[in-house]
C-alpha cells in the first residue's frame, strides 16, 4: 500500500518545533520536532514514560506547552482550547478508552458531529423544519460512520456495555465523525489479541485512504507499528532519538538501547556487523 507520497514541495500539515513541557521540575517533553505531511501514516513509539502521550496532549491542547510552536495547516495552535483545535481538524482517541460511557453508541458519534450540526439552539427548542431536516441528516451521517465500523447493529447499545474491541472501534468512529484531517490514535491496539490487531492495522489503512486522512499513532505492539506506519519517530526521556522508515528504526542502535538497555544494543550492533561481513 502506498499513500500519496509527501514531497518537499507540499507544506507540512502539522509542524512541531522545539516543543517542551514541564510538570513542576520534571521535563516530560524536551524540545521535540515533528513534521507530518498530508497523507502520512506515521508512528510515535518509545518506552513507557517517554513522553508520547504528553506530546499528544500538547498537540490536542489538553496541556499548554512550556515552550515551542505547534502549527497546523500553517496556523499556530499552541495554547488554543482543545475544542477549537478539534474544530480545526485534529481528532484523537485515548490510551484508556474515553467514550461517553452511559450514552448509546449512536449518541457517542453524534456528539462528535456536533460542530457540524447545522441548526441553532432556537431551532432545537422550537423543533422547526430546519431542525427536523438537519437532525435527520446528522443521525444518518452518524449511522454511516457506525456502519463503516460494523457497529450499526449496536447503535442503541450503551457504550459501556460494548466488548473491548468494539469500544476501541467506536472511539475511532467517533473521532472520525468530527471530520478531522489529522487523526491521532493513542495506542489503538492496546489490549487486543493478534487477530484483532491485524484487523485494526487494515482498518487504519482503510480509513486513511477512505477519508484522505493523515494519521499519527502511538503504539507499543511492534507488529502493528512496523506493519502499518510509513514513518516512525522514536522518543525516549522526552526527546526524539530517531526518525525514519520502519527498517531504519529497527536497526538503529539508539532505539534498541532505549528499549532493551545498553547491553542489548551492543549485542545487536555486533550481530549486525557479523551479518554484514
Amino acid at each position, binding site marked *: 500500500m502506498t499513500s500519496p507520497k509527501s514531497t518537499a514541495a507540499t507544506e507540512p500539515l502539522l509542524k512541531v518545533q522545539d516543543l517542551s513541557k514541564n510538570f513542576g521540575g520534571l521535563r516530560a517533553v524536551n524540545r521535540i520536532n515533528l513534521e507530518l505531511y498530508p497523507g502520512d501514516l506515521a508512528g510515535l513509539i518509545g518506552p513507557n514514560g517517554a513522553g508520547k502521550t504528553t506530546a499528544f*496532549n500538547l498537540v490536542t491542547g*489538553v496541556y499548554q506547552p512550556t515552550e515551542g510552536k505547534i502549527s497546523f495547516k500553517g496556523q499556530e495552535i499552541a495554547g488554543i482550547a482543545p475544542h477549537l483545535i478539534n474544530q480545526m481538524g485534529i481528532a484523537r482517541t*485515548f490510551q484508556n478508552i474515553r467514550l461517553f460511557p452511559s450514552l448509546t453508541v449512536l449518541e457517542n458519534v453524534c456528539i462528535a458531529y456536533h460542530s457540524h450540526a447545522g441548526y441553532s439552539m432556537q431551532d432545537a427548542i422550537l423543533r422547526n423544519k430546519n431542525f427536523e431536516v438537519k437532525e435527520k441528516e446528522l443521525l444518518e451521517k452518524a449511522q454511516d460512520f457506525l456502519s463503516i465500523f460494523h457497529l450499526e447493529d449496536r447503535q442503541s447499545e450503551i457504550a459501556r456495555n460494548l466488548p473491548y474491541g468494539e469500544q476501541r472501534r467506536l472511539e475511532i468512529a467517533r473521532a472520525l465523525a468530527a471530520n478531522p484531517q489529522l487523526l491521532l490514535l493513542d495506542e489503538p491496539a492496546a489490549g487486543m489479541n493478534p487477530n484483532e490487531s491485524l484487523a485494526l492495522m487494515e482498518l487504519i489503512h482503510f480509513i486513511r485512504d477512505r477519508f484522505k486522512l493523515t494519521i499519527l499513532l502511538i503504539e507499543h505492539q511492534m507488529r502493528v507499528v512496523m506493519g502499518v506506519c510509513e514513518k516512525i519517530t522514536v522518543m525516549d526521556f522526552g526527546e526524539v532519538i530517531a526518525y525514519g522508515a520502519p527498517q531504519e528504526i529497527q536497526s538503529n542502535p539508539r532505539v534498541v538501547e532505549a528499549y532493551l538497555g545498553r547491553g542489548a544494543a551492543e549485542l545487536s550492533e555486533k550481530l549486525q556487523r557479523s551479518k554484514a561481513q
Partner: protein
Amino acid sequence: MNTSPIVLLIQKIIKKGWLGKTFLALITLLAIWQIIVALQANPSLFLQQVINGLQLGFVYALIALGYTMVYGIVRLINFAHGDVFMFGAFVSFYSITRFQLHTWPQWLFPSIPHGLGLIIGAITVMAISMIACALLAIVVERIAYKPLRSAPRISALITAIGISFFLEYFAALNFVFSPNFITYKRPVEVVTWAIGLNGITTLGNGKAPPDGTILFSNIALIIILTSVLLMFGLQFIVKKTRIGKAMRSVAYDKQTARLMGINTDAIISTTFAIGAALAGAAGMLYAIAFPQIFFWMGIIPGLKSFVAAVLGGIGSIPGAFIGALIMGQAEVLSAAYISTPLRDAIAFSILIVVLLVRPTGIFGEPEREKA
C-alpha cells in the same frame, strides 16, 4: 498586524487575567482596610476580637477535622457530622446535670483538691461524650453508608442529609432532647482575667473591666488547650500508628489497600469514629463557651466547619486547622467591623474568593487532568 503599545498592553492585560485579579484585589483590600482602620481606632478591642475569634476557630477546627477525614477517605460530605456535634453537647449536658458525673472524684475521694477533682471530672465527661459520639457515628456508618459504598456518590450524600434530618428531628422529640433551648450548666466556674499594660487582674462577678484591657477567660484557655491537645493526638494517630498508616493508604487507594490486606471497612468505621469523637469534644467545648443548647445547634457550626475544611483544602488535616482559624477570625471580625447581620455571608464570600484563587483550597492538592 497592528502592534501599537496600547494594543500590546490590552493583550497583556487579557493574557494575564489582570482585570479579574484587580477586581479580587480591590475587594480584599477593602476588607483589609476596614480592619486596619478598626485596629488603629481601638487596638485593645481589636485584640479582644482576635481572641474571641481564636476561641471560636479552635472549636470549628475540631469539627472540621471530622469532615476532612471522612471526605479524604470516602469522598463523602458527611452532612450528619454537625448533628453528631449536637449529640456530643447533649451527652455532656446530661452527664453533668442529670448524673453529676463531673463530681465523681469528689464523691469517691473527698480529700482530693477541688480544682484537680473538677479537672478530672470534666475530662471524664468529655471522654464520655466522645465515646458516645464515636458509637453513634459507627452505628450510622454501618446502617446507612456502608450498604451504599458501591452506589453512586450522590446516594450516599442524600443519605447523609437524611441522617442529618433524622438526628435533628429525633432529638427534637419531647422524650429525647426536646425542641426547646436548654441552658447548659458548665462543669467549671468562669474566671475572667483582664490583661492590661498594668498587669493581670482577676475580674469579679459583674464588674466592668478597666479601660484598655483585654478579657481572657479560663473558658478560652480550656478550649484552646483541649483543641491543641486533641489535634496533636490526632496527628500522632494519623502519622505514627498502624491505624493511621492504614487510614492514609485507604484514602489514597481503597482497592490497593484492600489487596494489601487492610480491612478497609474497619478503617472507614474507625475514621468516622475518630472524627465523631472530635466533634463530641467540640460539642462540649462549644456548649461551655456558649451555654445554650438545642437540637439545631449543630447545623450552623457544622456548616461553617465544613466550609473551613474546604477552605483549607478538604482531605488535609493542617488545612482544616488553618481553615477553621480563618473562619473563626472572619466571623468575629466581620461581625465587629463590617456588618453583624452579614457575617455569615462574608464568611461564605471568603470561601468563594479563596476557591477562585485556589480551586482546591489552601492546602489542597491541585487536581490534574489526565488524558
